[in-house]
């Protein structure tokens, strides 16, 4: 049996990536001639009008929208985009004063306008709990009290309790922890990500200035659910609940209520990418904030230790995943700073709305080199057997101002020289015009309210609001089932070939670690999403963020990798010795499929 959505003799991944990614890249550049499969796709595009979408104006509100109006199942791409912007407004609103008192973290200050230029404090989402505050490496969550009325101490001041306490770096004054805690330095262990526009030479306070660093946070609803059930250290009935779900999807019989892990509607997780800004960049084009990041302290070897530094950096990416009453598989929206994708000479490829204004030369692939992916299954060994190769293509060592990544995972192409990288020329799947329109509308709204500030330089990339199978991808780029939505990815958070066109399972062991596959370990389709339908589940092999997080659902953790992985033992920091181990650190959160 072959995975969903593939037919014929071509390798399924070759078919999808080669045909659809090239097709959509071409579609975004409407003036370009298209050929072959791309031509066929474009021919099927239905004409659309902007008038339809002009009726979906969004309001500048500090209220997190509870759901897509009318419900997720029937929403259009424009509906979902409008919802995503409502989320963006609410989450980037100035937060109320952070006093540690009940009802302060994650709460917007309605008395301030969005984008208040006089406000330098944390934004609503920034006051969410960092993953280590929910899943500490040591002890209980900081401020934990067994009191649901107080949300189990959610509002306590930030404290980052890793397995061992982390001191300030040499020359860094000991400070109270800022809300933005960048304790990830890889793209879920698969690769490291860089911004070429930043000068590469280490500074006195940053050993790897080009490196983009990340955080993951969650809101009050998720924290309270975790705390109420004792899941922060995989306690309570965590194992039984995971077992109940994995058994349930195996038997395709929905488990009784409350026997599995199921976050309440209103649960939000965010992931954000931050970096140092280059002297050549205009800081007013970025949301900037004090961040805590980590560096190597002391000696190296097998047990180097971290220390922290605080600095003001710029936000380059913001993911929002939000469970709503009609979207039990979460709604995934991702935003980027406008100028992430640049040519080597520094020219942005897209504008702030996502239009491709400076397309790469004709024939340019999305990345240099551009990996070839082939899915496969070794029936004799009962093993998934995909491959990713760049053949004889050279690595991109001269990236100029481009963003670029370096793979870490054993199954992905890795260079031998330190500078061997993969440079980003364009997205695998361009931003659909309906999303571009939503961006334009949002920017106009911000401008009208005098709230543009840095926020006019952020754009929605795409939204996923319900799962569908790769075989149901619609060539219309604005269809709810368009390929860019299917493969939702942020260009600085999910950049490499696995993540830009994800679907199926992420292989977590062996020589193919870090490669995706649509096969399960028995040779059938790996379905990464399971939606309750009566007493059974509807299963999907979804792509992009939702499909990837679906791996955490399959593992029983209801789409949450931070719950799936559990205790955060150490903050990450740039250290080649440890970089080599990080793939397995992350992927061990996944099931061995």
């Amino acid at each position: 049996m072959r995975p969903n959505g593939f037919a014929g003799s071509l390798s399924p991944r070759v078919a999808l990536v080669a045909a659809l990614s090239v097709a959509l890249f071409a579609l975004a550049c409407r003036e370009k001639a298209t050929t072959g499969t791309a031509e066929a796709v474009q021919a099927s595009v239905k004409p659309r009008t902007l008038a339809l979408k002009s009726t979906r104006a969004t309001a500048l509100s500090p209220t997190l929208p509870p759901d897509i109006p009318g419900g997720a199942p029937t929403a259009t791409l424009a509906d979902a985009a409008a919802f995503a912007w409502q989320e963006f407004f609410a989450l980037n609103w100035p937060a109320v004063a952070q006093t540690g008192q009940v009802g302060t973290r994650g709460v917007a200050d309605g008395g301030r306008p969005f984008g208040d230029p006089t406000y330098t404090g944390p934004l609503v989402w920034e006051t969410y709990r960092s993953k280590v505050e929910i899943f500490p490496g040591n002890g209980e969550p900081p401020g934990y009290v067994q009191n649901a009325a107080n949300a189990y101490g959610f509002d306590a001041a930030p404290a980052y309790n890793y397995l061992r306490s982390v001191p300030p770096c040499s020359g860094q004054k000991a400070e109270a922890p800022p809300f933005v805690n960048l304790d990830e330095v890889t793209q879920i262990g698969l690769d490291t990500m860089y911004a070429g526009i930043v000068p590469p030479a280490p500074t006195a306070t940053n050993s790897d200035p080009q490196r983009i660093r990340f955080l993951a946070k969650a809101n009050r609803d998720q924290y309270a659910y975790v705390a109420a059930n004792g899941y922060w250290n995989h306690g309570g009935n965590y194992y039984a609940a995971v077992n109940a779900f994995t058994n349930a999807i195996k038997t395709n019989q929905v488990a009784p209520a409350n026997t599995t892990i199921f976050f309440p509607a209103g649960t939000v997780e965010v992931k954000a990418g931050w970096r140092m800004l280059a002297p050549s960049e205009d800081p007013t084009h970025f949301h900037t904030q004090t961040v805590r990041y980590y560096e190597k302290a002391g000696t190296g070897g097998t047990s180097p230790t971290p220390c922290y530094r605080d600095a003001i950096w710029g936000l380059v990416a913001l993911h929002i995943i939000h469970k709503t009453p009609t979207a039990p598989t979460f709604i995934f929206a991702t935003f980027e700073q406008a100028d992430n994708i640049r040519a080597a000479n520094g020219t942005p490829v897209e504008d702030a709305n996502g239009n491709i204004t400076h397309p790469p030369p004709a024939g340019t692939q999305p990345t240099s080199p551009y990996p070839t992916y082939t899915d496969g299954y070794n029936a004799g060994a009962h093993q998934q057997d995909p491959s990713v190769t760049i053949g004889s293509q050279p690595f991109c060592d001269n990236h100029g101002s481009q963003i670029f990544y370096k793979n870490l995972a054993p199954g992905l192409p890795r260079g031998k020289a330190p500078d061997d990288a993969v440079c980003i020329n364009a997205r695998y799947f361009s931003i659909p015009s309906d999303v571009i329109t939503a961006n334009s509308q949002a920017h106009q709204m911000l401008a009208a309210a005098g709230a543009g500030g840095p926020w006019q330089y952020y754009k929605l990339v795409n939204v996923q609001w319900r799962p569908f199978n790769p075989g149901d991808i619609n060539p219309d780029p604005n269809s709810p089932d368009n390929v860019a939505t299917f493969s939702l990815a942020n260009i600085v958070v999910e950049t490499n070939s696995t993540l830009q066109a994800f679907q199926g399972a992420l292989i977590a062991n062996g020589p193919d670690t870090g490669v995706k596959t649509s096969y399960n370990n028995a040779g059938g389709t790996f379905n990464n999403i399971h939606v309750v339908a009566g007493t059974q589940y509807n299963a999907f092999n979804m792509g992009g963020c939702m499909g990837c997080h679906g791996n955490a659902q399959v593992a029983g953790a209801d789409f949450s990798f931070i719950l799936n992985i559990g205790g955060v033992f150490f903050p990450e920091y740039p250290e080649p010795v440890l970089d080599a181990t990080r793939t397995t650190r992350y992927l061990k959160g996944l099931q061995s499929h």
Partner: protein
Amino acid sequence: MATIYKIHPAIGVARIGTSSQFYIAPDTGGGLPTDPVTGQPVTSFRDSTGDLLKQAQRFRVFSYDDTNPNDPGTEVTAGSGGVAAIEWTVYLANKKACWYQFEQLTGSGMEGDEGYLGNGQGTGPGMNPLRNMGITDPAARQALIIDPGPRTIGGNGNPTSADFNVSGAFSDPAQTQPYPITTLGSIQLDANGNLLVLAGNGSSGTTNLKPADPNLPPVYEYALTAYANNDGWFDDVSDGPVSATIVLTTGASVPVDVPAWCLGVPPKYAPQIMNQVTLFDTIYDVAVRMQNYNPELYSGGAFNPGYLVDFPNEVAPILDRANLYQWVAEIPPAGVTAHIGITQDSAAAFPFYILRAPIMPPAVQNDTNGTNLDVNLMPKLAGDNPISQFTRSKYLTLTQTQYFLVQQWVSGNVLPAGTTRPTLPPAAAIDRAALENCVGGAFCPGIEMTWICRNTSIYSQPFRIQHATNPQQGKLSQTNGDDNLYPHGVEPGDIIKYMAQPWQADFNECSNQPINPDLTTNDTSNAVTAVTFWWWPAQRPYFVYPSVDNPSGTQLPWTRGFLDDPNGTPTYSMPNVGDMQMVMNWKDMGFIVLQQTPTGPQYLEVERNTPAITNYQPPLLPPMSAAAAVTLTRPTGRIAPRAVRRARQIPSGK
């Protein structure tokens, strides 16, 4: 040259069964037992009638040149090499009922504990009451020892087999229900004159036929009340010395110089899945650190930081074990993947930080300093005492020696590629294998042997239990070792006396354990803050993959269908109802065995007598009349798993 004779294994392990037939204990760690006729790995754990086969432990004599410390030994067999016969003497006994109550680490001598004698026999905090304390007459207490006396077979004028049949209150069917204790096993010779020790039948019963609580319905009348101490109860596990005399063709007799010991203990239901810490690991750790067993590795009170590890033989086996726990416990998918990962990690990639560092001795884990006590660390196995407030030891760790070996590997202190340390000679390998198939922790109390294995006073030399001189039937000591010292040696029944009474109660309850991460208490009344750890699922499986009646391939409780089924509805919510069921159904449980399936190798549950489990009715024993019995209604439906997680029952006063 002087020849000395040693019996191997040093500590053998026979296992109980209901059948008169048997298989032979495996000679490799994680190996299947072997057929006594063909010598091939067994394909069934039951006889043709469905009864559970016993595991016989074969003991052999090896001769050594005592001037050559590297002599690997030569096996001595009757009828060759000038040996006419081997005369074997074995003395099995069970002292559980006249010993002290098992109170976790209290009495162990650890952390300033004064031992049973010093703690006193009272029931106050930190004290050690006796079992059956209502029986105070010394003679009556002596009668609590199941003591069939020694048996000798082989050699001149001796039989070729003998049994350890017993008499006493515990053997009277009218007094002991549901099963009388009629024997502790038997011994016989194999074709080479070697010794085979067969353990008991797995019978457990009580003379205490009075209701445990007059307010309880009759169904609970004979329920066990605690996991480790139940007055009136007896079981037929055992232990004792194994010695031999070589009868030469010249007519001379030569006693073996180094005798052995045999345990007669419960089955290992997952024979191919080794515990993360085996009994070999624990006793080896004692030998290394306290008995100068491997001075290159440890001397002068410290491990040698320059020791180069033999990765395939000293480290990889430690790293490989966790992976197989997925077949006997409900390891979440993330854990399964992580366990697979560490079997493949390079030294640089291995997450050494996730190992819980052993702090010497384990009981010192009460230390409230440092992060080593974080609940997230591995292995996720319960410690010696996560349940009561005295001498807490919440979490199991690798032994200090295991931990050091892994640490050396991570640090790059490994033998040059292509070199290994010498392999064990066959006789030493037999010693090792017997212990590798046993639980090396946690000891609360454990299955085969408890924390007494960490007490060097029980040993004459590494791995060898020191025999008491000339133990006599009817005169076995009631107090030997109550000060945690065995200067006069170990008597029959002295090893097993620490274990739960009856073993089935502990066996049923030792599945998983909620542990309070708060270092200042073991109170788990707040189920939310408790974290569930496993005990020793490699020995007593918790969740398994049945090979039949499970087309979806889901993982199910090993004790599914029990009245306290973890996935069922506990209609009988009184504690220990499942303990009583284990007394009846232990013989019906499935074994977890490696199977080659269309999707690759899997360890699946086989040979389960499910009807006997699902049709189980609590025994209605005299003096209860049939009319007084309640009719059981089998529970239906499911409950939230948390509701059936219970802390082990702590005796009142604890």
